[in-house]
């Protein structure tokens, strides 16, 4: 009798305690959370240190500064954009953007840790906070802007999707691939565009899908497929690491628009502004003819007010972003302007030469246009 009473008492006390904490469940973002489960579940939740989504603004910059370096998600398999050499050093157009961002934040372009991410996991890595910024020749699209929790910073490279075939095959157009096999990488807009374009042309084909660029191009080199498709810049760059680059030709077809640029995650507008204006600083540097060589002399001798504002001589643009006032100066001094970055990685002296085309200043007929600073 005493024992049953004791058991009952314990249970009653517990449920009372639990019930006392009931009703205080947090509902994220004003959504009503309907709990169909038992009392115990609703109650335990708020007693825990509820992980309320932080306000977001400024969090990333704080974390990055506290950590002391920037973690940048890059490609490791595309020479010219993101590539790691045998000595372990990263180089490439997208890699240089990360260095520019680090220069803007820390005044030191080496304070960045590069994480190679596959096309498959890049957005999850960004969402979960494993990387601070994704600079990995990623195409901007509405679906990605909304569904994948990503904010696309301004495009740094305007590209299009292309197709590469062996010269010996004699194929000159997409229709020549009728009944053939095309190698493509998974987790990309390339996969979807290929399906769309081939369907609209009425060409039947078989896709051979692989996880990463290395496997895709290895299969193509083995002859597993008749053609390989990705962004034209990727085709040019990967062709340089094939056994005989001259034996492959890139078809003169553009299958889609591929605006490539850096990506940050939803929720932190300050971080988005910093990433965005780093891009514009690169554009502005070329527009105003400021290079890493002459930035010091320009800084002391400049008269144009816009240039003075950019370089921090006048005004406090940097402070508005949460950075130092010499943020753009650091970018241009330590990394260079857009033209220098482009020529270093994709210029005529490099094996991965791509003519600038749309990637020129608006004054030269291209699409690069930096908004005014004030």
């Amino acid at each position: 009798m005493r024992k049953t009473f004791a058991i009952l008492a314990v249970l009653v006390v517990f449920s009372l305690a639990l019930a006392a904490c009931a009703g205080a469940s947090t509902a994220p973002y004003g959504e009503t959370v309907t709990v169909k489960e038992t009392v115990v579940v609703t109650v335990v939740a708020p007693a825990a240190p509820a992980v309320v989504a932080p306000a977001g603004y400024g969090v990333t910059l704080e974390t990055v500064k506290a950590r002391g370096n920037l973690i940048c998600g890059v490609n490791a398999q595309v020479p010219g954009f993101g590539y790691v050499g045998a000595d372990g050093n990263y180089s490439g157009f997208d890699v240089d953007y990360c260095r520019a961002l680090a220069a803007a934040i820390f005044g030191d372009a080496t304070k960045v840790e590069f994480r190679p991410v596959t096309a498959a996991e890049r957005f999850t890595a960004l969402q979960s906070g494993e990387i601070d910024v994704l600079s990995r020749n990623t195409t901007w699209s509405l679906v990605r802007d909304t569904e994948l929790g990503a904010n696309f910073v301004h495009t740094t490279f305007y590209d299009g999707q292309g197709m590469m075939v062996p010269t010996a095959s004699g194929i000159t157009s997409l229709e020549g691939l009728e009944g053939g096999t095309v190698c493509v990488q998974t987790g990309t807009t390339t996969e979807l565009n290929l399906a769309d374009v081939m369907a609209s042309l009425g060409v039947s084909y078989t896709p051979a899908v692989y996880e990463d660029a290395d496997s895709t191009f290895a299969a193509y080199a083995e002859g597993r497929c008749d053609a390989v498709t990705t962004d034209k810049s990727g085709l040019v760059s990967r062709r340089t690491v094939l056994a005989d680059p001259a034996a492959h030709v890139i078809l003169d077809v553009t299958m889609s628009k591929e605006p490539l640029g850096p990506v940050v995650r939803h929720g932190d507008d300050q971080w988005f502004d910093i990433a965005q204006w780093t891009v514009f600083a690169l554009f502005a540097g070329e527009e105003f003819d400021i290079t890493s060589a002459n930035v010091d002399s320009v800084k002391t001798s400049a008269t144009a007010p816009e240039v003075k504002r950019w370089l921090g001589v006048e005004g406090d643009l940097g402070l508005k972003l949460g950075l130092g006032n010499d943020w753009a100066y650091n970018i241009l001094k330590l990394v260079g302007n857009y033209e220098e970055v482009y020529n270093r990685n994709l210029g005529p002296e490099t094996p991965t030469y791509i003519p600038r085309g749309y990637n020129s200043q608006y004054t030269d007929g291209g699409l690069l246009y930096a908004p005014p600073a004030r």
Partner: protein
Amino acid sequence: MTDMNSILPPLTERSNILRWLRKNLFGSWVDALLTILGALVIYWAVKGLLTWALTVAEWEVVSANMRLLMIGQYPIEQAWRLWIALGFLTFLMGNSLAIWARRSYLVSIVLLALPALLVYLPFGDEPRKWLIILTASGLVGWGMGCARPEVLKRSVIAGWVISLPVFILLTRGFSSAEGVMPIVGTNLWGGLLLTFLLTAVGILFSFPLGVLLALGRRSELPIIRWSSVAYIELVRGVPLITILFMAQLILPLFLPANMTIDRILRAMVGITLFSAAYLAENVRGGLQAIPNGQFEAAQALGLNGAQAMIFIILPQALRLIIPILVGQFIAVFKDTALVAIVGLLDLVGIAKSVLAQPDFLGLQREVYAFISLIYWVLSYGMSYLSQRLEEKLGVGKR
């Protein structure tokens, strides 16, 4: 009364090679046919393999990338720390062989001489120097173990206990970039080094978890039992690759917003959780084989449940299932290859980036044959050792 001398000796078949061939290979028509077929198959396979391996294959891809395959992108100037850690391990192994396996000459000689034999492989000069040092440390350890076995027993056991933490400490380092042992980030660990680390950590941490799960499954408390059963059946019913993907992609979502967890740590968690479920089933089998009388005798002696389990039941159960446990550990070793699919650069993962170098495109056969060889040698070695251990412990005989 028969004269012993007049009894003829029994007719014995003379055994010579012809009779042996006739009996074993050509006993009947079917046998003869099978033998001929088998001989043809062997000839064709061996000839093909040897021709390929010795003439067509380009083994430079392996020798030129030996560093990448063994330690990944670990900075070469810090590799001396890994050698020191290996030296510590060979020293401990020499001690253990001398103290516990004095009679197993073959095993001892092979294990102690292994670094010396590896010198003949196409390594550079620096690794060769270190391999000689490893052999020396193994021999020194063996000598010490021979000289003072009883005294050293405890220290050697303590040494093994701290060997993994020491290894990880040496690999990771602890000082800043200019200090004596700069920290080497985990994203640079790769190759065989990473495979070993994943296996060791997986085995070490899944063992207690597996034992706990097995005990939980046999518990009388229904909730504990159902939870253990649910966990074990759930984990055993899904492929390892899904658990690894879950660990890589979803584990970060489970943690609070600004806490990030290292990628290698995530893989370790995945492998541990997976292996623990299989271990739990094996341990449960061992526990079931212990007669109830043991438990009753323990109770009669006044030991409570936990004490009986720790001192009486578990030691017997674990000894019974040692071969199965070793089999499970070998499976963990082979399963670590799957982390290559989630993007970690272990032995299989680094092979892909080796093959992406422009000089070595198209040499998949050589690289993957080499990697298969490494896995095979290590697996076979472990299973052979477990057979010897089984014989020595007399499992199943007493």
